[in-house]
C-alpha cells in the first residue's frame, strides 16, 4: 500500500491533460451557438470514436500492424454486439462479452 512520488507526478500530469478538455468547453462557451454543420459533425463524433476504439480492442490487439484475427476477440466482440442490441444493457454486455472471451480462451 505505497504511493510512489513519481507515480503521483505521472497521475497528476495525466489528470491535467484529461481535465482541461473535459471542463474548458463548459466553462468558456457561454452563449456559444455553433453553426448547424458543426453541431451535426459533433453528433457523429462519439459514434466514430467508440467504433474506432472497439475495432482497436477487437481487431488490432497484437503488437504487429494490421488485423490480428484473434478468435477469442472476434467471437466475443460479435457476441458483445449481439447482446448489446438484444439487451440494451451495458452491464449485461460487459459480463456476457467477458464470459464468452474467457470461454474462448479456455478452448483455444
Amino acid at each position, binding site marked *: 500500500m*505505497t504511493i510512489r512520488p513519481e507515480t503521483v507526478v505521472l497521475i497528476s500530469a495525466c489528470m491535467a491533460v484529461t481535465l482541461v478538455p473535459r471542463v474548458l468547453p463548459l466553462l468558456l462557451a457561454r452563449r456559444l451557438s455553433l453553426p448547424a454543420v458543426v453541431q451535426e459533425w459533433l453528433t457523429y463524433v462519439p459514434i466514430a470514436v467508440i467504433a474506432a476504439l472497439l475495432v482497436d480492442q477487437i481487431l488490432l490487439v497484437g503488437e504487429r500492424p494490421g488485423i490480428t484475427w484473434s478468435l477469442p476477440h472476434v467471437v466475443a466482440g460479435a457476441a458483445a454486439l449481439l447482446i448489446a442490441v438484444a439487451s440494451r444493457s451495458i452491464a449485461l454486455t460487459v459480463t456476457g462479452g467477458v464470459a464468452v472471451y474467457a470461454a474462448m480462451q479456455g478452448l483455444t
Partner: protein
Amino acid sequence: MQHSPTTFQAASLGMRAAAPVAVAYAGIGLAAGVVGAEAGLSAAEVGLLSVLLFAGSAQFVFADLYTGAATVLVATVFLVNLRHLLYATALSPRVQHLPPGARFLIGAQLTDETFALASSLIGTRLHHGAWMIGLNTGAYLAWIGGNVTGALLGEIAGTVDALGLEFALAGMFAALLVTQIRAQRARVPMRVFVALLAGAVMVLLDYWQPHPLNLMIATAVAATAGVGARAVRRRAVREEAA
C-alpha cells in the same frame, strides 16, 4: 421532472439513473484494478488514479505505459481522452444556464457512458445541475470502489488472466456503440455508416502505422463523411422534388 424537485431530490434521482452505469463501472473498474495491480501499481496508487483520472480507457493505458517515457504516457492519455472535448462541446449548450462551479463539476466527471446516458435523458436543456452531478457521482463512486477492490484482489491473487477481464473494455465499447447509434432512431443507417467507416479507417491506418493519433484521424474522417453524405442526400431529395 415536471414539478421542480429540491437539489437533494434531483441529486438522488440522478444517482438512481446512474444504476446501470454504476453496475458496469464496478465490474469494469474491478478489471482495471486487477490490470493495474498486475502492472505493478499498488492498491493505493490505483485508488488515486481512479479518483483523479476517472477515465477507463486512459487508466488501462496508464497501467500499460507508466514505466516508460513520461511524455509518451501523457501524450497518449491526452489523445485517448480528447474525445471528452467533443462531449463537453456537445453538452455545453444544455448547461450554460448553470453556475460555473456546477459546470466545472459536470465537466470534470464527464465519461463516455455518463455522457451517452445523460444525452439520451436530458433533452435540450439540463434542468437541474444536481441531477447530472448525482448521476456522475454514482458512476464515480462505483468506479473507484471497483478499482480499489480489483487492485487488492490483484495484489493477493496474482495473475487472474483466466477471468477474461481484459475484454471488459471492449464489451463496454460494444454497448456504448449500440447506445450511440440508437440515440436518434431516424438516422440509424447514417450512424451505422459512420461507425463502419471509422472502424475501416482505423484498420487501414493501423496497417500503415499503429499510432495513438490514428483514433483522432479515423474519428475526424468518419464524422466529416457523415456530414458530407447527409448533405449529398439532402441535395438529391431536393432535385427529385424539383
